């Protein structure tokens, strides 16, 4: 009888432990065993479908660059500066960080996915406009 009780108790303890693990086992939390990229919040309103942009952004940037380069089509939002002005991350000096900084919006995911991009070897990686607020993780 006593043996059965102790078995039941240990089973309950195991369940409680599992429950506690499940609560704290949120993959995005800092305590997670697997590191996840902490994507900085956008400064402006949502203008694009995030899921589509995640898989399509490089194609859309390529498409746009050719149209601008060859045909002089210069849309206001759908251009690199449009992305950068909304996805700027404020550094310690109050200005937007450039691509040298690991906190740069583009770097957060590209570093995580081990993707090396060369956009910013030529292009400016900071917005022309001064960022006002937000941009923290």
């Amino acid at each position: 009888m006593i043996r059965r009780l102790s078995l039941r108790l240990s089973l309950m303890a195991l369940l409680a432990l599992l429950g506690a693990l499940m609560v704290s086992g949120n993959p995005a939390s800092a305590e997670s065993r697997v590191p996840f990229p902490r994507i900085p919040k956008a400064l402006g309103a949502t203008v694009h479908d995030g899921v589509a942009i995640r898989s399509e952004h490089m194609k859309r940037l390529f498409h746009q660059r050719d149209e601008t380069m060859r045909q002089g089509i210069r849309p206001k939002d759908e251009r690199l500066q449009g992305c950068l002005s909304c996805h700027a991350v404020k550094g310690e000096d109050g200005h937007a960080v450039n691509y040298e900084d690991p906190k740069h919006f583009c770097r957060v995911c590209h570093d995580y996915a081990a993707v090396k991009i060369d956009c910013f070897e030529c292009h400016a990686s900071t917005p022309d406009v001064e960022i006002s607020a937000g941009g923290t993780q």
Partner: protein
Amino acid sequence: MTECPTSSSRRQFLNAASVLGAGMVIAPGVTLHGISEAKAGLPRVSSKVRWGLLVDANKCTAECTACVSACKIEHGLEGHGRVKTDAQWIRKVELRDRGSGRTQSLPVMCQHCDEPPCVDVCPTGASFKRADGIVLVDKHTCIGCRYCMMACPYKARSFVHEVTTGQKSHSPRGKGTVESCTFCVHRVDVGRQPACVEACHKDGKGAMTFGDLKDPNSDISKKLVAHGGVRIRGDLGLDPGVRYQGV
């Protein structure tokens, strides 16, 4: 560059798709988004325009370098103290008549030829001429071979030898690519004048006129009709868009 037929038909297709709705299902699970939906009304370059620049060498003086300074600021061209290899999109050239000893000073930049030899020799198609006559380097495809620099009779192009930082957003430039005067294409596309022309009128002698060579009512066309204009090395038959008076 003439309009690419495939891209225009593709555009029409995309426009038609955007009329039907925000996206069109072309197969189960495959949705075609009208990418050009928001851009349909935006202006694009046209061969109805040919941009040109007229320099009046009688007004230009040797001590004035307003155009050169403005270009450097506009495009973030930094020097490294190496005169032979530092990027130079526009330079002042002094002409001296051997007989009389008279000297003249004038700016020389990419002449935006109608038959550009840099475009002919480019192995990747990075050097190209836009429909409106502006000759550019597409640095996305430039491999830095520098054939165009050898082909250019005006020595208008530069090669970027150093890692660049602090570029202007409207003027991307990077190590390993060739670059030259763009006629400030980012300004021209929004109806503004190139930085050198603006500076020449503001701080200089007002020797430069920029405009549409195909429009008979433009300032540049009127001046060319009234006083003529010389193409440098016109004998090469490249028909540059930059013309000079008083040389």
